[in-house]
């Protein structure tokens, strides 16, 4: 029985033995986030994105014994529904669960290694929905594929169910999706009724200065995670996942709380203090004036998989420390 992705009451996943060096992990996870954003951007650009691979069509009669996943979030889902032993290959960015360290690496969004994928003789390959060429190559080789689409929380739960069906673990996937949704709901109800701080959720900027600040707009999983954690997104009216925030916008939106999320291994208090200090150049922002800047580090903030439950919990604790 593979390990569930989130153990017990389980918010202690940080630091529990990643299978790759921490430095790599940080770099990789950042890549994952951006890759995911790029994918969603690419999908949006094409206008009507092709429908997701129909779970019914091409469904293997028997569960696939060998699965390759090019999508870290999907890999986490497969392990979480119990399909971990079937997973034989993962992307270059996969770092969770620790078992992925023993799986073959087959490239990622931009550089899938088709030869290596074929050599693994998979019966199902999870790819990004935008990897149309790869889908066709696989289909010519007679290999079923599942197109992963980036989206909000609802999309995550439905992907968990889809992957459960496709991997032969439908009941476990149904239970997991319900359980994850319920646990997020539990956090939400815990902070419900409290004042929702107007929050800016930053997921990238220049290291030492407030330049090229990127924050969550009003769509996508980060926005929904913030919403569930009891925060009011100051950029909720901007219908984009990623917003390049100018100095003027930072001042005009006047967030009462700033949360910086970063992928990777935990950082020391000095590094976190350094990140917070960078905001001192804009003391007029209420969050800066009142010292309400939280730095949250962990891959759960960039990979829209089962660990989003952890993300919601950590964010809720940062925004509403009195509720816990």
């Amino acid at each position, binding site marked *: 029985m593979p390990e569930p992705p989130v153990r017990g009451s389980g918010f202690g996943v940080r630091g529990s033995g990643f299978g790759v060096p921490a430095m790599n992990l*940080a*770099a*990789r996870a*950042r*890549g994952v*986030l*951006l*890759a995911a954003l*790029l994918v969603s951007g690419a999908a949006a650009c094409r206008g009507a994105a092709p429908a997701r691979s129909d779970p019914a069509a091409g469904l293997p009669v028997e569960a696939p014994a060998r699965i390759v996943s090019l999508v870290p979030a999907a890999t986490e889902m497969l392990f979480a529904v119990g399909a971990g032993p079937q997973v034989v290959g993962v992307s270059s960015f996969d770092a969770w669960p620790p078992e992925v360290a023993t799986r073959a690496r087959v490239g990622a969004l*931009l550089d899938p290694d088709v030869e290596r994928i074929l050599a693994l003789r998979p019966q199902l390959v999870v790819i990004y929905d935008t990897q149309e060429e790869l889908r066709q190559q696989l289909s010519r080789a007679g290999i079923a594929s599942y197109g992963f689409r980036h989206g909000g929380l609802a999309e995550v739960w439905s992907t968990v169910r889809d992957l459960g069906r496709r991997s032969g673990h439908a009941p476990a996937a149904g239970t997991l999706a319900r359980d994850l949704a319920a646990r997020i709901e539990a956090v939400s109800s815990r902070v419900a009724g409290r004042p929702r701080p107007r929050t800016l959720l930053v997921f*990238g900027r*220049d*290291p*030492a*200065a*407030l*330049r*090229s600040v990127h924050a969550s707009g009003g769509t996508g999983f980060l926005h929904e995670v913030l919403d569930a954690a009891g925060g009011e997104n100051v*950029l909720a009216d*901007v219908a*984009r996942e990623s*917003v*390049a925030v*100018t*100095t*003027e*916008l*930072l*001042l*005009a939106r*006047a967030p009462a709380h700033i949360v910086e999320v970063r992928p990777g291994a935990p*950082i020391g208090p*000095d*590094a976190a203090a*350094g*990140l917070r*200090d960078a905001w001192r*150049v*804009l*003391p*007029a922002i209420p969050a800066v*004036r009142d010292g309400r800047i939280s730095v949250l580090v962990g891959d759960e903030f960039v990979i829209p998989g089962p660990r989003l439950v952890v993300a919601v919990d950590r964010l809720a604790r940062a925004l509403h420390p009195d509720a816990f």
Partner: protein
Amino acid sequence: MVPLRRRLAATVLGFGGVAVTACLLAPLVGSTRISLIRALDRSAPFADNLDAQIFFVARLPRTLAAALVGAALASAGVVLQALLRNPLASPFTLGVSAGAALGAMLAITCAGTWAVSGVSVVPLAAFAGSLGAVAIVYALATVKRRGLSTEVLLLAGVTLNAFFSALILFVQYFADASQTLRTVRWLMGDLDVGGYGPVLAALPMVLLAAAGVALLPRSLNLLSLGTEAAAARGVNVLGAQRLAFLSASVATGAAVSLGGPVGFVGIIVPHLVRLLVGADHRLVLPAAALFGAAFLVGCDVVARVALAPLELPVGIVTAILGGPFFVWLLVRQR
């Protein structure tokens, strides 16, 4: 014929008026509506005065940055077009911007993510990269003969551009997606400097370059006729060429490290200005600097308000305005 002195006064007054007006109006416009009266109201403490903060912290520094970058790039463009006797030359022709881009990209990719200090290393690395490119191009252009060969200068610059671009792509291929995104974003130009520090850091370099350029107009007029003609009329050809190359390069390096390689300002503005004031560099240089400042300040306003609250990278605005103009210019010259 109106004497030069009066034409110069008229030019500086006219273009200076445009530049000053642009710099005064630009901070009043933006994604947020602010009141100038409240912004200048000293009775309320600055910390509680949102209008003042947006005016003085967000808009004024970037207006000044736009003016500085626009003036530096436009004058560098004029100087290089005269030096290389090529209307297609721009501040980026000689590899300066590619060197800066390589420096910036290495800083983005290799510098520690957790660098903690007030200053970002990206502009410093960009400036160092631009100086490195200048040194290489200059060394190549002077290596074989005593003079400065403008043909070799041009070819060395173009080759260095290609070489640095390949290095950039090489490092990019192994960088992760977020670093790639930041590099691409840097290449589009960004004037949201978020304070006066970066502007003040670039100012001495731009002033140094301006001092060099101020000595050049007469020599550039004669150099445009060819080096032999210039030498026959008493121009110290090598000295003038060196000064022109180095001033234009320092101006470009400072501008690019402040705002990124904002395209087209350095190539459109010189031609626009020549259409208006003629080819005399004693008029073209001040006019180009002032009009370049006004043009980039205006483009930055468009970039800020066109899709507000989202912002267009200013390099996109200048290129969208500049591209069609440039094509028209090419066709017209046939």
